[in-house]
């Protein structure tokens, strides 16, 4: 509050908030893009996110290294993804319901083992001050960008490149669009889907580690309020495209930062309604992008959610 930047405080706070809040959205939605491109939906990433947040925080606290925490969260996410992938490979099992049950399991296990880690303080992930060129403190604070956000951008670009030009990407797309065509090509759809779901889970786990190790930066039971689920909805909005998923994550992050940004300039009236903004935005986006005749453009053909 040393320099008065007047009405600019709100957009600057939203920009900074968007960068801070969007990272978990980005990781979960990239993981979900990968999973859904293989023809599976994993609704349980909310649970993976929460468990990733807890395990990442716990390992970072016990080992003293935030990056070991990120690794642990990725590993935990892989296990959850693997479990989801294996269960969904059984015939006659409803993948949406399995996602809901794993959402409960992830959250439940995180709360169960997390009680011991509510108090201790774990090391934080480092951030890079990209606002050095400006002498406005608010802008400097807004542009203090976490390394994971930058890794997320690189991952989005890599994923887009992989899907478009590599052999692995082609295999993933074939499996996602037609199980029969994949079988005819001699591929094993279930195996590929399990691998895609496990990798997607790892991404979501890292998103969770960001929550507990950077922003908000501590472990508590209320650490995620549906970010994992919103990220799944965001994938539909982004039309299963990693680059669009990045922009969508920024938009959602901005919506999530709206409440705190307005509060920071003294508008506190009805702030519970601003907290609903990301959910309302997600729902609005879902309504706008869905279509009653189910032929959603860009959707993988084998996806149960759009069939």
């Amino acid at each position, binding site marked *: 509050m040393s320099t008065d930047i007047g009405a600019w405080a709100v957009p600057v706070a939203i920009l900074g908030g968007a960068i801070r809040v969007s990272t978990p959205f980005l990781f979960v939605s990239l993981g979900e893009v990968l999973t859904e491109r293989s023809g599976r939906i994993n609704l349980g990433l909310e649970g993976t996110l929460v468990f990733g947040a807890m395990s990442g925080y716990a390992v970072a606290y016990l080992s003293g290294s935030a990056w070991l925490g990120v690794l642990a969260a990725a590993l935990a996410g892989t296990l959850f993804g693997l479990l989801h992938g294996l269960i969904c490979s059984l015939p006659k099992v409803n993948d949406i319901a399995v996602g809901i049950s794993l959402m409960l399991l992830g959250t439940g296990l995180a*709360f169960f083992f997390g009680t011991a880690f509510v108090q201790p303080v774990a090391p934080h992930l480092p951030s890079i001050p990209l606002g050095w060129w400006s002498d406005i403190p608010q802008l400097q604070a807004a542009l203090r960008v976490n390394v994971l956000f930058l890794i997320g951008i690189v991952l989005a670009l890599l994923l887009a490149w992989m899907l478009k030009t590599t052999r692995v990407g082609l295999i993933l797309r074939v499996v996602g669009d037609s199980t029969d065509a994949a079988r005819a090509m001699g591929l094993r759809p279930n195996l590929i889907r399990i691998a895609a779901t496990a990798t997607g889970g790892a991404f979501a786990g890292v998103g969770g580690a960001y929550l507990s190790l950077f922003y908000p930066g501590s472990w508590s039971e209320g650490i995620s309020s549906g970010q994992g689920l919103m990220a799944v909805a965001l994938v539909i909005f982004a039309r299963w495209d990693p680059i669009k998923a990045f922009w969508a994550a920024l938009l959602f992050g901005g919506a999530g930062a709206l409440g705190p940004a307005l509060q920071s300039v003294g508008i506190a009236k009805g702030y519970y309604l601003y907290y609903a903004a990301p959910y309302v935005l997600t729902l609005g986006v879902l309504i706008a992008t869905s279509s009653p005749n189910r032929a959603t453009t860009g959707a993988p053909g084998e996806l149960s959610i759009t069939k």
Partner: protein
Amino acid sequence: MAEQSVTMAPGTGGRRTEWLAPLARRAEGVVLPVAALIAGFALFALFLLMLGKSPVDFYELVYKAGFGTAFSWQNTLSRAAPLLFAALCVALPARLGLVVIGGEGAIVLGGTATGALGVCLAGTPGVVGLPLMALGGALTGALWIGAVGALRHYRGVNETIASLLMAYIGIALMNFLVEGPLRDPASLNKPSTAPLPRSLQVGDIPGMDVHWGLIVALVCCVLTWVLIERTSWGFAARIAGGNVRAAQVQGLPVGRLIVGFTALGGAFAGLAGFYEVAAVQGSANASLAAGYGYTGILIAFLARQNPLAIIPVAILLAGFEASSGLVQRRMDLPDATILVLKAVVFVVILVSDTLYGRFRLFSPERWRTR
């Protein structure tokens, strides 16, 4: 296999086990979920063993606290009422093949509407005020979940994601209303609506410490069973749930069925909110978001979406919830223990879906021929 059973004319080569044939398929629907439930409990027992806790002590405590005495039964039964309603909110849309998981939002808003109406109706006698409050709660819930059904049918919005998002929106709306326009200035550390007058509170069933919501919920379960198993509406819904195109070709009003079934489910969830406010809390506040909606999902899946089976399953789960506090204190376990147990059982139940039709024991043909 079907041909074989046709050639077996009754009386000619009838076997002594023939009477078992119609029971076989039904037995499958009972034996497999019970087996999965037991497997889930066993898996959780393993989990406890790995942590060095005694599963025997755990289940004994759960039994004692949930079903051991008359007092614990009353505690369990009063928790069962909202769970029954919440499970119906999942089972009704499931008939149409929809997975609606946002009953929590309808419960919370139904309760908020009840609290708000209670303030407006203060001074009216209970015979007038209570039905109006119940209607308000049910209508709010019906609108909330009915909107999910309408979005699904008319806009193609995925109902699972939409309903959960709306649950978050509903909880935010309740917090806003209870902390803002509807707040009773006298409620200091726990913002609430004004307490309901005595005349606008739901009493207990005579001779028990359980409110009337339990009886109403049980009646609703039976009526829902009649609706979906014994009426043409329920039959039409099953056809629409199996194949939307076929139902539309048949001229069935698919849109009205979807909106109607989701709205009815939402109305039940709204009633759960009504009883939570009018019979338990006495005012609307953040305690409404107690997770009944989420436990309802598990109950409906355990009961295989059958409204009659929901009754015993809801009572069982209510017993688990009732035992939560005692288990925590006696065994020094975190309060998420019961949540983990529920999740493990949920996963195992869904995995067991793959076993249906695998056992010849449950095939009607096995009992007719051989």
